[in-house]
C-alpha cells in the first residue's frame, strides 16, 4: 500500500489549553502550530504540506480560508494547504490526510493542525451548528447529536440490561483522568451521585453524560521515519490508520447499538498495523457522550458486544485498569473543540508513548485513537506505537 518504504513518524505534537478561550480560530491554530513546530525542533521551511482540520469556522465565526490564513500567519509559504472537514471527525481525517501525504511521498513534512472556536455562541446555537450535519428528515424534527445519544443510550441499557449508573462511571473516570491534564477544559473530579443527580438533557442522559462546548487547537508534525531518525530522538510511528463511513440517516441502521463505521475503521487500522485488539495497551475514544465510550470499546473489539458497560463499572478502563481508556480525560473532561479533538487524541497517544504524560501516565507501547463524526457517521482510527 505504501509507495514510500518508510513508515510515517510523528516528530512533533502539541495542543493549546482547551476551554473557554478568548482567541479566535486563526489564533488558536497559530498557537498550536507554533507549539508543534517547536516541539519537533525542525526548521519550518521544511514543511511542505499543511492540513487544517476544522468543521465549521464559517458557521461559527464567519471565517473561511483558515488553512491559507495559518500558512501565512506562520510563514509557511509556499506549502500546499487544505482544510479538512469531516464534522466531529475532522481531526482524525486531518491526521489521515497528513499520513497519506507522507506515506505516498507527496510530502516530506506535513503539519496537521485542528481547531474550533465555539464558546462565543450560545449552547443552543452551537448545538444547531453541529445538528446541521443531520439529514433533512432528522433536522426538521429538531434532532440533535445529544438526542441521538439519548435514543441510543436507552436502546443499549434496555437491550443489555445495563444499569444507568454504568454510564455515570464513564463520566467519573474521565473527569478523574482530566484532573491530571493541564490542557483539559475541566480539571475537576466529580462523584457518581453528582452525575446521577445532574439535570436531564436527553433522557436517560444527564448533563455529565455530555462533553462541554470548548475552544482549542492541537497539532502534529509528520515525516518519513528516515527523516525522523535524523531529526528526533523521541519520535513515534503511525503503524495503522483506517477510516469508514456509516449511513447518513442514523435510524436506517439495523442495530442502533452498533457503530458500523467504528468497526470498519478499526478493522482497517488493525490490518495495516498487523495488530489485534488485545495488543492495544491504551486508547483515546470519542466520548462526546458517555454511551459512545461503551459502543466504541465494543465495536473496536476490546470487549464483547454488550459487555462494555460492565468493564467500565469493574474498573478495567480506569487509569490503573487492564485497558486504560481516555487517560487524557477524553472529550468529556478535556473538551471537544470539534476539529481539534481527533488531533488532540493522537497528541495524547504521543505524550503517553514518550512517557511525558505525568500523573496520568500509563504503561504500554501501542495506543489507539478513534475519532467519530456525526453520530458514528464517519470515523477515523489511528494506531500509534513507540519505536
Amino acid at each position: 500500500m505504501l509507495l514510500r518504504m518508510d513508515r510515517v513518524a510523528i516528530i512533533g505534537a502539541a495542543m493549546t489549553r482547551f476551554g473557554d478561550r478568548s482567541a479566535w480560530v486563526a489564533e488558536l491554530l497559530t498557537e498550536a502550530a507554533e507549539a508543534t513546530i517547536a516541539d519537533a525542533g525542525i526548521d519550518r521551511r521544511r514543511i511542505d504540506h499543511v492540513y487544517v482540520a476544522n468543521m465549521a469556522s464559517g458557521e461559527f465565526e464567519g471565517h473561511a480560508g483558515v488553512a491559507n490564513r495559518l500558512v501565512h500567519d506562520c510563514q509557511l509559504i509556499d506549502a500546499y494547504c487544505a482544510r479538512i472537514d469531516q464534522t466531529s471527525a475532522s481531526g482524525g481525517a486531518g491526521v489521515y490526510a497528513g499520513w497519506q501525504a507522507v506515506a505516498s511521498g507527496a510530502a516530506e513534512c506535513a503539519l496537521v493542525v485542528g481547531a474550533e472556536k465555539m464558546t462565543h455562541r450560545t449552547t443552543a446555537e452551537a448545538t444547531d451548528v453541529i445538528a446541521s450535519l443531520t439529514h433533512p428528515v432528522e433536522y426538521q424534527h429538531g434532532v440533535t447529536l445529544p438526542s441521538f445519544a439519548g435514543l441510543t443510550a436507552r436502546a443499549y441499557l434496555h437491550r443489555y440490561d445495563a444499569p444507568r449508573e454504568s454510564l455515570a462511571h464513564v463520566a467519573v473516570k474521565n473527569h478523574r483522568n482530566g484532573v491530571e491534564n493541564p490542557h483539559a477544559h475541566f480539571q475537576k473530579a466529580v462523584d457518581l451521585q453528582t452525575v446521577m443527580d445532574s439535570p436531564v438533557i436527553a433522557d436517560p442522559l444527564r448533563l455529565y453524560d455530555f462533553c462541554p462546548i470548548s475552544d482549542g487547537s492541537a497539532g502534529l508534525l509528520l515525516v518519513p521515519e528516515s527523516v525522523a531518525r535524523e531529526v528526533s530522538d523521541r519520535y513515534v510511528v503511525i503503524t495503522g490508520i483506517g477510516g469508514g463511513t456509516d449511513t447518513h440517516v442514523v435510524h436506517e441502521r439495523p442495530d442502533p447499538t452498533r457503530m458500523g463505521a467504528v468497526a470498519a475503521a478499526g478493522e482497517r487500522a488493525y490490518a495495516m498495523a498487523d495488530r489485534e485488539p488485545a495488543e492495544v495497551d491504551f486508547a483515546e475514544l470519542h466520548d462526546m457522550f458517555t454511551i459512545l465510550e461503551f459502543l466504541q470499546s465494543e465495536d473496536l473489539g476490546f470487549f464483547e458486544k454488550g459487555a462494555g458497560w460492565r468493564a467500565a463499572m469493574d474498573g478495567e478502563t480506569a487509569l490503573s485498569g487492564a485497558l486504560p481508556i481516555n487517560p487524557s480525560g477524553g472529550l468529556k473532561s478535556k473538551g471537544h473543540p470539534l476539529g481539534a479533538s481527533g488531533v488532540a487524541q493522537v497528541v495524547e497517544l504521543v505524550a503517553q508513548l514518550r512517557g511525558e504524560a505525568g500523573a496520568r501516565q500509563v504503561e504500554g507501547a501501542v495506543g489507539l485513537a478513534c475519532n467519530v463524526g456525526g453520530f458514528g457517521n464517519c470515523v477515523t482510527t489511528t494506531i500509534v506505537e513507540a519505536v
Partner: protein
Amino acid sequence: MAGEEPAAARYADGSVGYPAHPIGPDGVAATGEVSLAEAVGTVETWTRSTAPPPGVRAPNLLAIVSFDVTGGPVRMIGQVDAEAIAIGDRVRLGPPTELRDPAAALRPATVQSYTGHRFVPVED
C-alpha cells in the same frame, strides 16, 4: 415527506426505506412508494430532549419507530405527540404539522421543509 402523505421508498430489489435516497441499496433509483398513512409502528427507543436547538419545542419528545411492511422494516425518527412514550408502544403518523420555527433554524426554509408528521400513540 414535506407535508404530503407519509411514504417510504420501494426499490427494484423489493427493499424499502425512509427517506428515499437517489440510489437505493440495489444501486438504482426507487421504483415506487409504500404509503405509511395507515401504518402502525412500534417504538424501538425514545428520548426527551430538554435542550433543543432554536425554534424547536421544549421538551422535545423523540422516538425511533419501526413499521413492519413488506420488504421492511421501515424505520423513522420523529417527534411524538404525547406526554410520554415507552419502548414497545404502538404509534401511527399524525396529520402534517409545523415541526419547528423555520425562521429560528440555521438551515433556511428554502433548503428544506419544516412540515412533517408526529407520531401519535394508538390503543391496540
